[in-house]
């Protein structure tokens, strides 16, 4: 517990992010009574869960000093493959979901090994992988290779993730909750977590202290790809279908959630608990716009400003420590 608390001590911006998210919800609920209603908060929670799950992988990669730009089309590919494989049948999920996750892991392994062993810069490798996945998905879809079911509905169980409730909360939120606990435990209490922070802070020092830097770095990309796939499956359930381009907003969204949550893009800092706050802030901000009758254009501007301000504040708190 103390170790979890020390995260907040070391990263004051995480606390700030939570305070900001809570303050926004409270203030807007007072100003606009409809905002604080249970139904609305539930739909906010679903939005937050999707961004939060995508950003989990990005958080781990960024802590390790890398970045994953292949998230948008990894997510999209997983969503499409899932609907195609299952053809809307629950019974097919037994093999389809593991297969999709396995494919994702393989993509992550290619990313990770190229970055760790061939020493290709993460931005370039994941950018190229994003293009490759886009090409395959768009090409196969246009070629009509029996992918007609692409626009069909996902199986009822997947649909239910966003629509059914367990103990008053959407099922997706429970899934997210489980991943929050799991990720926090791994980051704060496991050897993998310690090694991850070590290589993010100083890969050379980590190498000399006997850490298999390459393997840890490779694993972060596998994890990121698998989490993108999980988020893609859930997103297909939320939209009721998979379509080309559904992952595009998450390139910005995943990085923004991580840095708003106080992690340094240079690696070695931050925590998934911060990213959770970042995801909540982005979600609440998005939902504010229609309430104040602002066009979607304002969302881009507000997102950009929030990222700048939070990153600046995080930088200040980091330099003041030194």
């Amino acid at each position: 517990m103390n170790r979890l608390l020390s995260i907040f001590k070391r990263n004051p911006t995480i606390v700030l992010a939570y305070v900001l998210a809570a303050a926004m919800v409270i203030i807007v609920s007072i100003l606009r009574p409809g905002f604080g209603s249970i139904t609305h908060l539930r739909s906010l929670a679903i939005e937050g869960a999707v961004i939060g799950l995508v950003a989990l992988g990005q958080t781990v990669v960024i802590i390790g000093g890398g970045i994953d730009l292949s998230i948008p089309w990894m997510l999209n590919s997983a969503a499409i493959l899932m609907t195609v494989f299952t053809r809307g049948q629950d019974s097919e999920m037994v093999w389809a979901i593991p297969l999709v996750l396995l494919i994702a892991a393989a993509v992550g392994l290619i990313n990770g090994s190229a970055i760790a062993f061939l020493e290709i810069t993460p931005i370039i490798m994941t950018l190229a992988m994003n293009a490759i996945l886009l090409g395959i998905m768009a090409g196969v879809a246009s070629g009509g290779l029996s992918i007609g079911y692409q626009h069909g509905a996902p199986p009822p169980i997947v649909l239910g993730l966003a629509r059914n409730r367990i103990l008053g909360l959407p099922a997706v939120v429970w899934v997210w909750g489980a991943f929050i606990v799991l990720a926090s435990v791994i980051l704060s209490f496991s050897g993998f977590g310690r090694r991850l922070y070590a290589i993010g802070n100083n890969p050379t020092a980590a190498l000399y202290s006997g850490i298999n830097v390459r393997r840890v770095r490779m694993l972060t990309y596998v994890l990121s790809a698998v989490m993108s796939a999980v988020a893609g499956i859930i997103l297909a359930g939320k939209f009721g279908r998979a379509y080309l381009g559904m992952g595009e907003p998450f390139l910005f969204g995943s990085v923004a959630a991580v840095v708003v949550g106080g992690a340094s893009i240079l690696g070695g800092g931050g925590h998934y608990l911060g990213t959770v706050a970042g995801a909540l802030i982005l979600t609440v901000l998005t939902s504010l716009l229609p309430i104040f009758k602002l066009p979607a254009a304002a969302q881009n501007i507000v997102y950009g400003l929030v990222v700048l301000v939070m990153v600046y504040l995080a930088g200040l708190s980091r330099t003041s420590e030194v």
Partner: protein
Amino acid sequence: MGDKTIVTQVVSGAKSTAGGLRQGVQIRVDIFALVPYILLIALTATLVSLNSRLLSIQVLETKLNAALPLMFMTTAQALVILTGGIDLSIGGVLSLSTAIAATQMGETLDSIVMWSLIILLVGMAAGAINGLIVTYMRVTPFIATLATWSIWAGVALFVLPKEGGTIPRLLKEIVQRGRLLGLPKSVYILVLLIIFWLLIRRTRFGTRIYAVGSNANNAYLSGAPVKRTLIATYSLSGLLASMAGLYRTIQYSAGSPTAGDPFILTSAAAVIMGGMSLAGGRGGVVPSIVGAVILLLINDLIYFLGVSTFYTPMVQGVLLIMVVAIQSLGHYLRRRRAVQ
């Protein structure tokens, strides 16, 4: 190509006192710098052998017209990557420029000149803001420009909520239609862009871009104004992006608030394809432009092979990884020789 030779010599000259042994390595580096040119020639030869009618001035005209915005964006990106940064906001600047051009310009020459200048100024100011954020707020270039990309894209959506608008016919007439001395005007624009870069490279500012990129600390210690150089580079990048936006508006006769987004990653890919490293300090703009041409030719090749052009990004991605893998092999060999 020329850029690369000069810079590697300067850099390695500064780093090593033993000249003779390293000279042999230098030549090896240049072989890897040739990769984009070899690819360019191979792609062109394949395309021409598939269809000899491709070697005509009409084809050159349409191809170059379509390619110019990416070439400007690649130049913008290359300048920033040379300093060791990256500029994602050029996509937002391009969108904003098309939005302003498509909604504000009138048919008179006065209006065209005035709004063109305003657009270029906006682009430059947007770039300067990036530079200020990177230098004075100490935000890493990736995050800083990711944020400003979002901001400019938002402003573009305010100016022009969805694709549309018009461009004065007079402007299209001046910039695009017709030929000069038998050559399409786009050829002259490309030549001007390259001359512009070659001139800049010879100025003190040009040297400083390389100095800051290869080692900002050393550049600072040897008296180069690092912050000013960075701000100027980002401003130049914004200026070039707004030119790309202006040209794209003329090309499509309409604006689009999201026109810039596809260029962000493609421009970076073109720069990498041209052999530059994201670490900065090495390479040049001309190979980057060659990289952009390679990316575009892949699309043509796939089309002529009768494959769905939806596969283009895949082939581009694979080729990009291959080029980078060849480069890292080059680095590896060089390091091993240096050890020996």
